[in-house]
C-alpha cells in the first residue's frame, strides 16, 4: 500500500527528522501530489503525535504521498526547544517542500497544520512557490488564551504530581531569565512568544488560488473568533464533532477517524 521512508534533512548546523510515506501505486490523481503535515509544538505535539501518524498513513493509503516532520528543537530533529523561533519553523516547512520538489515532479502541495502549526503553514504557503491547499486544524486564534491554557496545564501537572507549590524563590528564578519563559515545563524563548503575538495582531493572508479548509474541534464559538484572524468568508470551515473533542488537548487519543475522513475527502475533491 505504502512505504515509510525516514528522511534526514540538513538545515544549516542542525538536522531535520522527517518521514516520507510513499504510496506504491498512486491513482492518477495522486501522482505529483504531496501533503506536508505541520505539527503543533510543546505538549500539543506530544498529544497529537500518534493521531498525525495515523492521518499520514490513511492519506498514503488513498494514494497521496505524505511527509511528516519535527521542527528544529522538537522530537528527533536537532537543536534545543529553547532555540525555537517562528522563522525557523516556517523555514523548516519551506525546506521540506523544496526537498520534495527536488526529488520528484511535484504538481501539487497541500499543507496540513495543527494549532500553531496551522499558523506556520499559512505563512509558509505565502513564501513557497507552490502551496495549493491549506488544511488548518484548530489554528491558534488568540495567543493570550493559548498562553493561559499552557499555564493551567502547568498548574494541573504540578497538582497531579502532588508537588509543592511554586515557591517564591522559583518564581524569582523564572523571572530573572530575561530571554526565556518557562510555561508548562517548556522553555519558550521570549522572542518566540513575542513573534507569535505580533502575528496574532494581523489577519492572515491567503492566496486567491489556494483552497483553504478550516476544521474546528473546539466547537462553534471558535469559528466566529476565527473571523478576526482569517477571512473565513473565503474559506471552507467545518466544526467537527468527535468522540474526544480536541485531540491535541488530550494525551490518550491515538486516532481520530472523523478527522481523517474529512481531510481525505477535501484532498480528493479537486
Amino acid at each position, binding site marked *: 500500500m505504502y512505504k515509510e521512508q525516514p528522511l534526514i534533512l540538513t538545515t544549516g548546523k542542525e538536522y531535520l527528522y522527517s518521514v516520507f510515506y510513499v504510496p506504491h501505486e498512486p491513482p492518477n490523481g495522486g501522482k505529483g501530489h504531496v501533503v506536508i503535515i505541520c505539527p503543533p509544538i510543546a505538549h500539543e505535539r506530544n498529544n497529537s503525535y500518534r493521531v498525525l501518524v495515523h492521518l499520514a498513513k490513511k492519506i498514503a493509503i488513498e494514494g497521496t504521498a505524505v511527509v511528516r516532520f519535527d521542527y528544529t528543537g522538537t522530537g*528527533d530533529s536537532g537543536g534545543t526547544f529553547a532555540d525555537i523561533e517562528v522563522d525557523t519553523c516556517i523555514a523548516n516547512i519551506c525546506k521540506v517542500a523544496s526537498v520534495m520538489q527536488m526529488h520528484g515532479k511535484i504538481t501539487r502541495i497541500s499543507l496540513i497544520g495543527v494549532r500553531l502549526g496551522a499558523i506556520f503553514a499559512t505563512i509558509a504557503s505565502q513564501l513557497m512557490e507552490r502551496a495549493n491547499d491549506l488544511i488548518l486544524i484548530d489554528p491558534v486564534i488568540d495567543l493570550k488564551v493559548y498562553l493561559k491554557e499552557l499555564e493551567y496545564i502547568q498548574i494541573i501537572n504540578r497538582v*497531579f504530581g502532588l508537588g509543592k507549590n511554586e515557591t517564591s524563590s522559583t518564581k524569582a528564578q523564572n523571572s530573572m531569565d530575561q530571554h526565556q519563559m518557562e510555561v508548562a515545563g517548556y522553555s519558550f524563548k521570549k522572542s518566540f512568544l513575542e513573534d507569535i503575538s505580533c502575528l496574532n495582531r494581523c489577519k492572515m493572508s491567503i492566496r486567491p488560488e489556494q483552497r483553504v479548509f478550516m476544521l474546528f474541534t473546539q466547537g462553534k464559538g471558535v469559528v466566529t473568533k476565527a473571523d478576526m484572524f482569517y477571512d473565513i468568508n473565503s474559506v471552507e470551515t467545518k466544526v467537527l464533532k468527535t468522540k474526544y473533542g480536541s485531540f491535541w488537548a488530550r494525551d490518550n487519543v491515538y486516532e481520530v477517524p472523523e478527522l481523517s475522513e474529512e481531510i481525505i475527502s477535501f484532498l480528493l475533491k479537486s
Partner: protein
Amino acid sequence: MNISTNNGISEAKTPIQPVELNIGQDVLRGILREPRQNRYPNHCILFLAGPGTTRCGPHRLNWEIAERIAQLGLRSFRFDYRGRGESSGQEDNLDVESMYEDAVWCYNALTRSFPLLQQIIIIAVCMGAISGIKLMESNPHVCDGIFLGAPRYIPKVPMAEKFQYSKYMMNKYLAKVLHRETWKRIIENKVDYMAVVRTLFGQYQKYVPQYRDKDNLLNVIRSRMTLEDKSSNTEKQLLFVYGQYDPAKIGCMRFYRKFCKMKGWRYKALEINKSDRTFNNHKAVRKVAEIICNHILSICS
C-alpha cells in the same frame, strides 16, 4: 534480525540513523545515535521509555541524554514501543508484557549488529524500568540500569475513586494541594472546576483501567524473580533517580533497595531537583541528563 541503518535517506551524513525492526507483522521504529568518534565500542545505551511517551521521552529527556553521551563517544539506541510513536501496532495492546518483548527484541538486535558489544546500559523511565529489570535479570550483557521515576506499583484503587462520591473530600484535597491562586479562581468560577478534576484524574486513570485486572507490580516483579539465583552478583548495579518531592519516592526506594539486596545487586539512589519528578520541565531534564552522563562515564571508564 540485525539493525539496518540504511533505511533513511539523508542529504548528508547525519548523526542519527533511523532503524526498523520487524516483530511479526509489526514494525518497531527507533533511532540509533552514533557518536562521531566511538570511544567506547564495547558499550551501548538502550533507552526504555515510559508507556505514555515516544522514544524522545518526556520533555525530550532521552534525546537530551543521547546527544550528551554521543559527545562523550557512546552509541545509544531509543525506540517507540509497538502502539506508540511511529511504531506500528494497536495502541490498546501495549502493556508490561509487550513492552518487555519490544525491549528484548531491541536488545537482541543490538547484540547481533555490534559484535564488539559487551555491555548494554539501560536508561529507563517510569514503567520502562520493569522491562529494564527483567532484561538485567536475564541477560549477561546488561549490568547497569539507570531508572528515573521507577514505579513501585500500580494501585488497584486509583485515588479518584476514593473521592468521586464525595465532593467535600475532593474539595478538601484540592484546597490542600492546589496553588492558592488557582483555588481562588476555581471558587470565583474563573476556572472550570470539573475540567481541573477531569484532567487531574483523567490522566491518572488512563493507565489504571488497563492494569486494574492485573496483579500489582510488586507481585508481577516477584513472580518473575529467579529466586534460585541467590548468588551475589555485585557486577550488576541499579541507580534510581527521583525528584525531591516525588510522591512515589519513599515506597519505591525501599522496595528497590530490598529487591537489589535479594538479588545481590548494588543499589544506589539519587535524589535531585526540587521539582516533583525528575523530568517535568526542560531545566530539570538538562540537569538530570548531565548527572546521568557523569554516572555513565564512571561506569565506562
